[in-house]
């Protein structure tokens, strides 16, 4: 394992993505409509200008993601010492994850994760 593996990985990634596009091109039936060229196309025609006020509820997802994402930063120092400390570390991280889970459960129960 040297720099060779890194180069091989890069080549494999390039090949894989290029292959995907190529296969798509080959089997493309060539459907052409107006929505095809629009930005953020997802199957539904856009109705208004994209500079539209979002529902405040969407921020909730971002905030919840932020909290749970950043809390997991504690797993890094834990991962450094887990082998040395052993079972105690495992139990402690379980308690930690359980507390996080309680927060998640609360958010779910409050309906913060409902799509509006």
């Amino acid at each position: 394992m040297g720099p060779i593996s890194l180069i091989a990985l890069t080549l494999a990634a390039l090949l894989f993505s290029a292959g995907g596009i190529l296969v798509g091109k080959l089997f493309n039936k060539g459907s052409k409509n107006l929505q095809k060229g629009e930005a953020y196309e997802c199957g539904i025609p856009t109705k208004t200008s994209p500079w539209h006020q979002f529902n405040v509820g969407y921020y909730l997802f971002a905030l919840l993601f932020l909290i749970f994402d950043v809390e997991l930063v504690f797993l890094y120092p834990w991962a450094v010492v887990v082998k040395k400390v052993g079972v105690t570390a495992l139990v402690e991280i379980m308690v930690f994850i359980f507390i996080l889970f309680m927060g998640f459960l609360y958010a779910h129960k409050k309906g913060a994760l409902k799509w509006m």
Partner: protein
Amino acid sequence: MPINYYIFLSLTLFVIGIIGVLTRRNAIIIFMCIELMLNAVNLLLVAFSKMHYVTNVSKVTNAGSDGQLFVFFIMVVAAAEVAVGLSIIVMLFRNTHSVDVNFLNRLKH
């Protein structure tokens, strides 16, 4: 590199943050400046942690590691603060349609 460089850099960032908090009027920008202050502290803590590691590693093998742990705590608490602060700003925006802090002078009698 001497530690002084790190201290100067992070104090500069910190003071930019303070000046931003004191002069800007947009709640979001004030908020970003506060984050800048916290991150200046993070930088300083990591630099000090390395400094203590280099000077004390012969006596204690994990010297200076507590400084880096502190950084994790600052990051997490800052995230919790961001969540609460942004919710407060969103709540305010719903009622006033503005995030300008000059606009908020109803409390002065």
